[in-house]
């Protein structure tokens, strides 16, 4: 271990970490929104739309992220889609994760007891209010742990972006390791950065979970 090397490369590493966090959070945001929209469209029960969405989800889940990223970044220009490396990375992460998030949301919707929707309808709530006030709060109980799972997996998936030259943490680490022959230090620093990120995400997840399960606490206390 040489802390001197790590110190010298600290600005590059920290900027790399910043790019990683930025790509991850923007990609996850796109994925969450897109996934939610897909899950909503899936609930419309229009058969051709369902088949198309199912096919898209299975192909996106079935193939490695690296392959999809290559298709987007290197194959895109053939159909006139010329993206910057970082933009391609964010869009790629967003599309890739949307398939997983869509399935997580679909699982969540299936956890909402039908009686609750019926009760809401019978007291005269419109479908938008039912979605936001009944379905969403209930489904988050079932689905938040899976979403945190996926966010953590996605944060580790961002290392793939280094391959299309996005200057994120892995990219900076490889530069450092190649210039100073300090592979071990690079891996060590990398582990620390990612551990920080994963730990922060899990903590945030648990706090959110406590918030969304707050309505269940009295019932659990009584039993």
């Amino acid at each position, binding site marked *: 271990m040489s802390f001197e090397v790590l110190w010298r490369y600290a600005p590059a590493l920290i900027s790399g970490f910043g790019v990683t966090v930025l790509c991850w959070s923007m990609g996850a945001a796109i994925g969450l929104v897109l996934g939610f929209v897909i899950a909503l469209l899936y609930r419309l029960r229009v058969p051709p739309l369902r088949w198309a969405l199912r096919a898209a989800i299975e192909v996106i889940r079935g193939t490695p992220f690296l392959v999809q990223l290559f298709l987007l970044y290197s194959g895109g220009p053939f159909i006139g889609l010329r993206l910057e490396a970082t933009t391609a990375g964010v869009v790629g992460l967003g599309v890739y994760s949307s398939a997983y998030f869509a399935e997580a949301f679909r699982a969540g919707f299936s*956890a909402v007891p039908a009686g609750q929707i019926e009760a809401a309808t019978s007291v005269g709530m419109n479908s938008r209010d039912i979605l936001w006030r009944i379905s969403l709060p209930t*489904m988050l109980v079932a689905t938040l742990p899976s979403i945190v799972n996926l966010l953590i997996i996605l944060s580790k998936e961002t290392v793939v972006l280094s391959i299309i030259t996005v200057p994120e943490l892995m990219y900076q680490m490889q530069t450092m390791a190649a210039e100073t022959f300090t592979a071990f230090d690079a891996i060590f620093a990398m582990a620390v950065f990612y551990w920080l990120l994963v730990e922060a995400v899990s903590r945030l997840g648990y706090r959110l979970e406590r918030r969304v399960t707050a309505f269940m606490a009295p019932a*659990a206390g009584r039993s």
Partner: protein
Amino acid sequence: MMQPQVVVHSLAYLTRAAGMTMYVSLAGIALGMAIGFVVCLARLSANYGLARAGGFYVSFFRGVPLLVQLLFIYYFLAEFGVDVPAMAAAIGGLGMASGAYQAEILRGALNAVPSGQAEAATALGFSRAEIWRRILLPQALRISVPSLINEFTLLLKASSLVSVVGIAELTRVSMNIASSTYRPLEAYLGAAAFYLAINLCLAGLGNLAERRLAAGSLQ
């Protein structure tokens, strides 16, 4: 241009590697389900120590990258005289990591089963084991199937990492083909096709399970 014969020539080699990938992944999934179930029970337990241990398991195995876990099991334990065979290290590594994710998925699903149901079953004289087997688990499984299939497809793709302990699985074999034929695109596309095919089978199984488990629900 593309030379599909590269893949055709090494089809037997790729198929054997795909079999290895499937074997390692399925064993990892099965082990992960067993671990995930136990860890989830521990986390939901009223015993503070058990709940904390479960929480620690999840935060450790989700926080440490799978690659590091595999290297640790295979190389680091050997330093202390614990010689883990490559296959056991691969399956154990995949299963233990997947167990953490599966525990969280199950926990969410169990939380979503209305607590009134277990109370009603208790009032009707169901034993605790029966409540789990007949009321909680069937519903929790129905809710968690899509997320579990998410996790299985991710595990299948993560199984490419077990090549670091010397197992000739799909990704490693396609790398070998790429370097011996100088046709990386064809070799990797061939491997991707195999991954897609296996994942489609997993998704199909998930679909079947979902239908079977949804039989009791009104939606």
